[in-house]
């Protein structure tokens, strides 16, 4: 029982952990990675059908669970912990948040229903904010035949290779719009990228006059909401992953012997473990704080930036320290620590680096930079 979570969230965490330990142990994760499929379809179906996870944020009236981001965050910790491969964050968190932020729209309702059942797999194509590169996206939407069409390319789309529906954030005349396009439609080119994180694929996507349907009105505020959700989701996953590397490192330090004693009896190793522990607990606390802020709508942008500023730097430190505890064995392909290092390091990059979020926090707390 963790006292900063509701009884329901505690129960959800136990259920998801037990499910993933049974259905997606490390060996299964490795099978998904080696086979090049981005998700185990049976696990995906059961997550939606038995546990309702893809529909956590979807209202009950649309077939979802109608829970808050606090419950979602606990699930994300577990996915990070279990290294679950697949488009869960893209579809169940980012796409669902985008559709809910876009406002009342029949197409949004339909897509949300599909996301909740797991049949619709959606990815969000960001105009900016995922990688922070100046030329992240050149996509623009223009009216065409009573609908819209998309032109331009996006350098990085998370889960762009396995999503059936692309939710594209793009300038549309004045302001920003959210558009739905089929990934298999004419004029969509999806080029897979080589990703550091083997459990989360990404693609470059090019639109050449792709037909799209607009969802809702101006998406300027919606974009901020989704980016905050993305930052908080990465923080929660990194926190869960860090908790697991801590457990692995402590377990190993207790049994691995050198100089006739367990290496965990040496202060140098103890101190590494203590530092990883401090980071794992801090990351968990701050990720849950961000999730509560998103759930209540109170200070969500600041809280998400705080969580990402911390986890993007410190969880990477923790994963590196854990790798150090493992010594040579941690440098082998067979050992899981590199899978965590990959996931945590990649998550640190998406939705804003630590430096990006510190700059943002500096602005939010009113610290001006001197004019040069």
């Amino acid at each position, binding site marked *: 029982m963790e006292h*900063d979570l509701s009884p329901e969230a505690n129960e959800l965490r136990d259920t998801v952990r037990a499910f993933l330990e049974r259905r997606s142990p490390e060996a299964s994760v490795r099978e998904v990675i080696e086979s090049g499929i981005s998700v185990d379809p049976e696990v995906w179906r059961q997550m939606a059908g038995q546990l309702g996870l893809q529909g956590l944020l979807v209202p009950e009236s649309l077939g979802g669970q109608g829970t808050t981001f606090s419950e979602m965050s606990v699930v994300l910790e577990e996915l990070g912990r279990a290294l679950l491969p697949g488009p869960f964050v893209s579809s169940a968190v980012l796409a669902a948040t985008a559709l809910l932020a876009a406002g009342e729209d029949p197409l949004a309702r339909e897509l949300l229903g599909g996301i909740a059942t797991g049949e619709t797999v959606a990815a969000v194509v960001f105009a900016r904010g995922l990688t922070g590169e100046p030329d992240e996206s050149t996509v623009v939407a223009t009216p065409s035949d009573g609908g819209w069409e998309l032109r331009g390319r996006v350098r990085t789309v998370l889960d762009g290779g396995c999503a059936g529906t692309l939710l594209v954030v793009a300038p549309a005349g004045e302001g920003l719009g959210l558009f739905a396009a089929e990934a298999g439609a004419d004029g969509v080119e999806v080029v897979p990228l080589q990703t550091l994180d083997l459990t989360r694929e990404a693609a470059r996507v090019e639109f050449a006059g792709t037909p799209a349907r607009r969802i809702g009105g101006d998406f300027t505020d919606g974009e901020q909401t989704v980016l905050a959700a993305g930052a908080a989701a990465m923080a929660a996953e990194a926190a869960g992953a860090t908790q697991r590397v801590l457990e692995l490192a402590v377990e190993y330090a207790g049994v691995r012997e050198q100089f006739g004693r367990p290496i965990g009896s040496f202060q140098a190793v103890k101190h590494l473990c*203590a530092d990883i*522990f*401090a980071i794992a607990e*801090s990351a968990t606390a701050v990720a849950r704080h961000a999730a509560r802020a998103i759930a209540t709508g109170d200070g969500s942008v600041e809280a998400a930036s705080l969580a990402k500023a911390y986890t993007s730097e410190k969880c990477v430190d923790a994963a590196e320290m854990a790798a150090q505890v493992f010594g040579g064995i941690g440098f082998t392909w067979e050992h899981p620590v590199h899978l965590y290092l990959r996931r945590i390091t990649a998550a640190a990059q998406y939705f804003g680096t630590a430096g990006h979020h510190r700059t943002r926090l500096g602005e939010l707390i009113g610290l001006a930079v001197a004019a040069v």
Partner: protein
Amino acid sequence: MSVIDELRAFLDEQLPPFRERWGDQPPFEGRLAWQRTMQAGRWVAPQWAEEHGGRGLDVVTALACSALLTESGAPATAGIFGVANVGPTIAQWGTPEQREHLPRILDGSELWCQGFSEPGAGSDLAGLRTRAVVEGDELVVNGQKIWTSDGMRAHFMQLLVRTDPEAPKHRGISALLVPLDTPGIERRPIRQITGEAEFAEVFFTDVRVPLRNLLGPLHKGWQVTMTTLGHERSGVVTQAAIIQRQVEQLVSAARAADSGLDPLLRDELVRRYVEGRIIGVLGERSLASIKATGQPGAEQSIIKLEWSRLSQRLARTRLALGGAGAVAGDDPGAAQAYLRSRSSTIAGGTTEIMKNILAQRVLGLPA
């Protein structure tokens, strides 16, 4: 009226005249005057039993009182070692006669210190060698203590002595309550790196202490002292709130400087802000655990660890924000605070010892 409203009304009435008299950075005499004022309203340790001068509040309400005090910027308690450390130990282990100290600890008429560290017993506190030998109904003490906080101004000391040199080191220690005007005690101030003297060396030569001043059973001084440390663990919630407030004060000061900050310096300050907020959310997590179980969770050990590191970094950032004027100027405050902060990873258990304890007790790594 709720307890919190009562405290708020008390502070609204008492703080403005106090500030008018003593300013924002009151000297020790000012803080002692404030402690007397506070205790007139029984607010110094409201979680203590009423018969000892408290209000018998539950831990959660008492923490809410602390939070309000932190928020109001009220001065820190002058006789803090008696109130925070010695008093709770006496309350748990003391005889009725010994408990008569408690109201006097709260109103500041008795100042206490703790005679723990020795020249040869710093991190290895249980290796202490100050001896006490039973002679009739007295204990005769010989030895030396060092780094005794408030040692020069205190009236009494909770003294750890070795009473059984044959026993394993944790089992041969006793705790004594010693009036510091007892013949054979000599005190000398330790001039520290700031130039001030907040600690003392205390020498004991054939000091005769009545056996009735033994706190808890003979040879159980280690357990007596350690169980109290357990009681004080909820204090991390207040500690977290205080350091977060210190960070916010530095941010406010930097914001007020209208010329804007060097980008690297701003990043350094935002790092402190992030670290302060992290301790804040860990404090909230502790509070949730205390509300549910009466005890903080494992995060309390992290708050202590991170607090010690952040208070140093914060002092260094404050110095950096002061620029050249902070190292050569009219106000030595930032420089003094920087030097003083060097003790925060040493006093009360070094960072390294805290990590060892955390690794062994919380993570279960072998000794």
